[in-house]
């Protein structure tokens, strides 16, 4: 290859690399205008006073944050604990399920079992949640079944409770747990387990010391993917929760509707975002420790 030609090529490559930044620019500009800027505005609004009709006005105040941590704190705590519980249940159900799918020997069976998890997902989220209204209702399918079998005499109140919200959240986000764990188990080399047995480990030890640590990245990703949308859920508690299953997302929605208090709604969502960011940080650190170890 002659020297001149290769030099020529280098500048050409340099040119392309420079144009790389140019290529990224429109998208960055878009995300800045329609994503970063709106969030900054929310941050500013959350410190403003409530004007007549709920709009934001000067002067700056901390009163919305005070209210968030005062009266609204119960609901904030409930949202976090419901999301946490959802994550735990998804993990307990999702891990064995992902393990089951990825240990099918035949490729086709593996694909079908995975597909069976994903397929319900492609139906509209509202409709999937509505289906639970049919199941859990006072005159719903479950009550109908239990009454006709004679297990109960009075219909159980399941709809419009925290239980209903929990079921709806687990149902809505279970695949978010299964998929990353599936990906990590699939990559997992089962020779490690054989090696562990050879070294005298029993099942529990082999699982805790070998399998679990190696699939930990999938578990962590799954937990983050379930916890985050659960904390901010709006549709699920709205359709299934009633007053007893009210979550922070519903109250944020109220501030932009009937209660007409945009600054308070902004403060509520900033606090919620802080919770999300905190859990992301936990995820990043846990992930890094996993990789380091």
């Amino acid at each position, binding site marked *: 290859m002659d020297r001149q030609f290769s030099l020529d090529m280098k500048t050409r490559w340099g040119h392309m690399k420079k144009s790389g930044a140019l290529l990224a620019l429109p998208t960055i500009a878009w995300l800045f205008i329609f994503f970063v800027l709106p969030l900054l505005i929310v941050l500013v609004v959350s410190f403003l006073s409530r004007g007549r009709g709920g709009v934001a006005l000067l002067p700056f105040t901390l009163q919305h944050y005070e209210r968030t941590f005062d*009266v609204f704190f119960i609901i904030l705590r409930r949202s976090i604990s419901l999301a946490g519980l959802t994550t735990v249940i998804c993990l307990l159900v999702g891990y064995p399920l992902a393990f089951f799918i990825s240990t099918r020997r035949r490729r086709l069976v593996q694909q079908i079992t995975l597909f069976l998890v994903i397929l319900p997902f492609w139906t509209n989220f509202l409709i999937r949640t509505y289906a639970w209204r049919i199941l859990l209702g006072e005159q719903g399918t479950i009550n109908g079944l239990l009454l006709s079998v004679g297990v109960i005499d009075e219909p159980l109140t399941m709809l419009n409770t925290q239980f209903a919200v929990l079921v709806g959240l687990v149902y809505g986000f279970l695949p978010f747990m299964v998929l990353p764990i599936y990906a990590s188990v699939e990559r997992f080399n089962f020779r490690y387990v054989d090696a562990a047995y050879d070294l005298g480990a029993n099942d529990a030890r082999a699982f805790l010391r070998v399998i679990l640590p190696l699939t930990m990245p999938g578990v962590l990703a799954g937990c983050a993917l379930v916890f985050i949308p659960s904390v901010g859920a709006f549709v699920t508690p709205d359709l299934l929760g009633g007053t007893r299953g009210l979550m922070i997302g519903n109250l944020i929605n109220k501030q932009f509707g009937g209660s007409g208090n945009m600054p308070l709604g902004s403060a509520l969502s900033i606090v919620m975002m802080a919770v999300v960011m905190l859990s992301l940080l936990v995820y990043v650190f846990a992930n890094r420790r996993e990789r380091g170890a």
Partner: protein
Amino acid sequence: MKKLGLLLIVVLLLAPAVTAQDMAHEPWTCPEGYDGQTLSIFNWSTYIAEDTVPNFEEACGVTVNYDIYESNEAMLARIRQGNPGYDIIVPSGGTVQRMAEEMLLIPLDMEMIPNVANVIPDLLGAAYDPENEYSLPYQWGTVGVGYRTEVFPDGINSWDQVWEHDGPVAWLDDRQTMLGIAHLFLGNDPNTTDADEISAARDYLIDKGGNVVTVAADDGQVLLERGDVDIAIEYNGDILQISWDCECDDYAYAIPDEGSNVWIDNLSIPVDAPNPELANVFIDYILDAKVGADLTNYIWYASPNQASIESGYIDEEILNDPAIFPPAEQVAKLFAIIDVGAEAEELINNAWDELLIFLGQ
């Protein structure tokens, strides 16, 4: 607000006295020149007949956008944040007053609304809009208790039966009405602006709301129909609609003896409406005797349209239904919601948020 009660008594005495006079009625015709235009309507949910809008579209050659809301407050919030493009809204009396004060309404053009002559004269010039500058009545009705007759074979005549019921109950997301009912029990003015009284009403409701499973956004009748609740506090027509739909006696509506809320909903044009002329035309259309009667026959609320009532277009069944036209002694106990001003509004909104939070505990 005793005045409104008296006024309604007059209306009631008037209504059953009228028999079908079978007036020759010309079908409503649209003025020329609106072909191809667009009208955007923002109305309460389940508050229009199936053919009201399509017939208007056909008569005028226009396209109608139709969106729904579930409370005065939700509609108000939307318009206050900047009218997103609606030409027609349907606020209740107190809300008309508030919106007019905040300059959120455009005056009506009475020259374009000849059918204003059809409105029951006593329903014009109400306290919230004395000159009818911004509003003309759409329908009127009450807030009461919808219940399953299977659970309450002897009916409901007191709010205490609602508070004490051992089973799921749905309240109505109409904050001023619900707090107003509590004020009745506490001996306060239902429209009080006093901070302590509002707090007391909130606490009263929280105390009585142990059996509440949801505070429904104008969809309590659906919960009742599904069987998810035994009682739903709702607007009368919504409950009557489901009884009519199922052609059964499974559901009934009652106004408890202690009293409740009576309201008049109005047609108004919000500020920055893109097409106020066509909005005036639409208001005239709604006030037509036949159109108004068809509307009432479908949504089961009381019509403010004298021509509709007198012409005999409205079903006898509706005119004779005490749930739609309550007896005079009941009307005397009803209260109307008025504009309480910005300060009390904030107090009420905060109280309502707190109520929602603590009801679920």
